[in-house]
């Protein structure tokens, strides 16, 4: 990965230096050239275009390493420089100082046949704009066809039969030339394929624009605005040419704008840098250009028509036209302003509508408050948007189900806090591009305030419930731990002490003459002690049977052997968490006690096994049935304890058909 990154960086700078070298050569040759075939300004536009494409290419390729668009821009800059070099090399080496440069015929060949390369990079960018991937897998064959037709056309161009165009008609190609018969058909097909590829590229952008929403839509719109400069520049050039003034200022401005705007727009769109601001800027520019054009047209129409009507020399047409423009300006300006505002507020308007509809659904109970985050994502056109809720007690963010969430803004995503009055509700993590549209972001979040508050309360309830469930389980587990400690204390403390006392009494008894009153009294005292020890042992067993240390099977076996009923045990030898085994044991113990007391049963079967991720304990008797869980004294408490461990207890006791008590204790977290 690191190696790949380094290789990419090296490749990047190799391309940049190559491009710079090629461009420097082209500029040098152009400066040396005494009779330029092209207008002077063209020699400025060319390096500008190369520099822009390469510069934006470097930025995009470094910031979005996984997006090929940066590399395509770099390729475009290089190809542009190469074409310029070829043209200048050919002009200098063939026309001006014939024979002064080596291999000038190659330069002529490239100059004459290499021009399709100028379209290749932009066509490819259109296919994969803005995320670097084709619009869908179905576009793969189309992209392949486009690459094939470009390659075929380019190769055939180099092998084209016949002489070069003037003024290079004297130069002969350094490559062999195909016979006309073989050349023509594939060349035509290649040309048509290439043309079709250009259309397909435009179609790819349109397809994307249709499907796109939110940020992607802005990205494509930005490219479309920049691309719209091309026909605008062409039209400006025509108009200038038609006017025949000999000036080419409009053409130059148009060309410079196109050359600068398109790579810039691509860069801004892909990097999302100030996306919305640029969006706004272009939008405004377009509208003001339209306004100016409208006013100019009004002026021209009025002055022309009045001039024709009143004859030349009158000042009236000019005055009237000025007046008309002045009058129209106010009305047009407010209209255009409204258009601008509507265009701008559209995202906000639609976003607010979306939130409003959701609030209605929410009130009607047709939508869940947990969906608030998704609604915000849709309303703000940012599918990556996430909503988090603030929990003041634990000072952390949680998601809509109350689980603690890591909220980490990075280079693509910003965090915007959500407040309602003085209450901190949470935060929205969203695409950085949205940060430039504070108005949109804040108004949509404000509108959704109530929903966010409800969702936050729900999340908090969910969180507290989870907490309570956990603490309940902890309490029960701690209770079992406490029982274990108590049992230990009874056995190791009190009971041993009683035995010691007994031994002391026996020792004293040993000193007395055998048949004496005192010896007899000591005998009965020791008998009392033995009773007490036995009772203590019973007590400890009730607190927690020590056999549980050997596993549930051992403890259930002991339980069965002490039962008044004939009891069969089928228990797994598997070990489970102590709290589960203890709970399972007490369920069985209670169920057995109930069977012995109320069910008039003669036989009981106790089973314990792992089943579907749970420890399943089942006590089945052949008694009279009809037990209700609420009446079962001990089972009521057991229901709570089992539930606290996330399990469930069921009692199935149809009259006359025995009783089945089943506890299911989940043992996989």
């Amino acid at each position: 990965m690191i190696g790949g990154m380094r290789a990419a960086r090296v490749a990047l700078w190799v391309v940049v230096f190559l491009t710079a070298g090629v461009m420097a050569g082209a500029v040098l040759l152009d400066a040396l050239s005494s009779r330029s075939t092209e207008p002077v300004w063209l020699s400025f536009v060319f390096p500008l275009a190369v520099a822009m494409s390469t510069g934006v290419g470097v930025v995009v390729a470094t910031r979005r390493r996984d997006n090929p668009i940066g590399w395509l821009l770099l390729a475009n800059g290089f190809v542009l420089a190469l074409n310029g070099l070829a043209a200048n090399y050919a002009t200098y080496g063939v026309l001006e100082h014939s024979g002064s440069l080596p291999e000038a015929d190659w330069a002529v060949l490239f100059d004459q046949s290499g021009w399709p390369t100028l379209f290749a990079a932009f066509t490819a960018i259109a296919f994969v704009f803005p995320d670097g991937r084709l619009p869908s897998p179905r576009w793969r064959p189309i992209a392949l066809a486009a690459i094939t037709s470009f390659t075929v056309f380019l190769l055939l161009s180099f092998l084209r039969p016949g002489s070069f165009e003037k003024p290079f008609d004297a130069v002969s190609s350094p490559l062999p030339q195909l016979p006309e018969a073989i050349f023509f058909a594939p060349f035509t097909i290649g040309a048509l394929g290439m043309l079709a590829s250009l259309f397909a590229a435009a179609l790819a952008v349109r397809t994307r624009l249709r499907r796109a929403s939110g940020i992607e839509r802005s990205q494509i719109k930005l490219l479309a605005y920049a691309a719209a400069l091309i026909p605008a520049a062409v039209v400006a050039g025509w108009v200038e040419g038609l006017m025949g003034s000999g000036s080419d200022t409009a053409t130059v401005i148009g060309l410079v704008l196109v050359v600068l705007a398109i790579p810039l727009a691509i860069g801004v769109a892909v990097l999302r840098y100030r996306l919305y601001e640029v969006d706004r800027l272009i939008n405004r520019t377009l509208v003001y250009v339209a306004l100016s054009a409208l006013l100019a047209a009004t002026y021209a129409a009025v002055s022309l028509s009045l001039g024709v009507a009143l004859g030349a020399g009158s000042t009236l047409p000019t005055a009237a036209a000025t007046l008309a423009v002045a009058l129209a300006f106010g009305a047009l300006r407010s209209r255009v302003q409204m258009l601008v505002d509507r265009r701008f507020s559209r995202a906000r308007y639609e976003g607010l509508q979306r939130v409003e509809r959701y609030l209605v659904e929410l009130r009607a109970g047709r939508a869940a408050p947990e969906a608030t985050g998704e609604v915000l994502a849709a309303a703000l056109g940012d599918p990556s948007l996430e909503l988090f809720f603030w929990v003041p007690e634990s000072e952390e963010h949680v998601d809509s189900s109350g689980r603690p969430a890591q909220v980490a803004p990075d280079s693509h995503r910003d965090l915007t806090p959500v407040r309602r009055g003085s209450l901190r509700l949470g935060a929205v993590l969203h695409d950085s591009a949205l940060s430039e549209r504070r108005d949109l972001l804040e108004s949509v979040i404000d509108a959704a305030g109530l929903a966010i508050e409800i969702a936050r309360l729900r999340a908090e309830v969910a969180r507290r419930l989870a907490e309570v469930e956990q603490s309940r389980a902890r309490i029960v587990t701690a209770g079992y731990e406490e029982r274990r400690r108590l049992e230990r204390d009874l056995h190791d403390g009190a009971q041993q002490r009683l035995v010691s006392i007994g031994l002391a009494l026996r020792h004293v008894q040993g000193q007395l003459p055998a048949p004496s009153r005192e010896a007899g009294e000591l005998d009965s005292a020791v008998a009392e002690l033995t009773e007490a020890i036995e009772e203590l042992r019973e007590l400890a067993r009730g607190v927690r049977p020590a056999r549980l240390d050997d596993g549930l099977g051992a403890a259930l076996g002991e339980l069965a052997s002490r039962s008044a009923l004939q009891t069969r045990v089928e228990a797994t030898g598997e070990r489970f968490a102590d709290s589960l085994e203890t709970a399972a044991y007490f369920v069985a113990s209670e169920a057995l006690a109930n069977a012995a007391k109320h069910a008039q049963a003669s036989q009981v079967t106790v089973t314990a096994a792992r089943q579907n991720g749970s420890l399943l304990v089942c006590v089945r008797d052949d008694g009279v049935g009809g037990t209700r869980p609420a009446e079962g004294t001990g089972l009521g408490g057991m229901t709570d304890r089992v539930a606290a461990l996330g399990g469930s207890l069921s009692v199935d006791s149809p009259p006359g058909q025995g009783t089945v008590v089943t506890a299911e204790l989940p043992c996989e977290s």
Partner: protein
Amino acid sequence: MRVVIAEDQALLREGLRRLFEDAGHDVIAAIEDADRLRAAISGDEPDLAVIDVRMPPSFTDEGIRAARWILDAHPDVGVLVLSQHVESAGAVGLVSQGGFGYLLKDRVLDVAEFLEAAERVARGGSALDPQVVASLVGGERDAFGALTDREREVLSLMAEGLTNNAIARRLVLTDRTVEGHVRSVLMKLDLTANEDAHRRVLAVITYLRAANHPR
């Protein structure tokens, strides 16, 4: 009889020492943990080691592990394990090696029976606590349906490790009567008669455990 006592509670340890000394036995060591017990056994092989199940450091089954070690390393030393309650099933299994006894602690209060069991173990016999036997006999009643109450009593005492003679004294019967009951029990349970007392215990216990765990 030369006795080593391993019991971590001082009061009880001294009580046990006096109990054995009052009966004329020789307590050669009274210690509080398993490590010193091993040293004591290795140094001067006694006839009997009386061991508490729970001892330092972990207070879980040090006693049982020490007992197992003694039975393996010093088969001539009888081992009597004392426990606060019926615990590890592993202890019962050790009875099969002979020279092993497993009793609840408060049995020491019935001095005569306790000393009898201790001497039996020291001689290579067995002693199993009545409560353990009861849990073995108590589970599956059907298996003993063929036995009379008296025979069941005899069976229990056999499982505790008592000899015919001791059973006779305990039940206040003549030796001959007890022998009759034993024969009858063994026949009804389809066990072969065996003169060796601890083998007989083994057979009976194996039978009882099998009856409790049909699988």
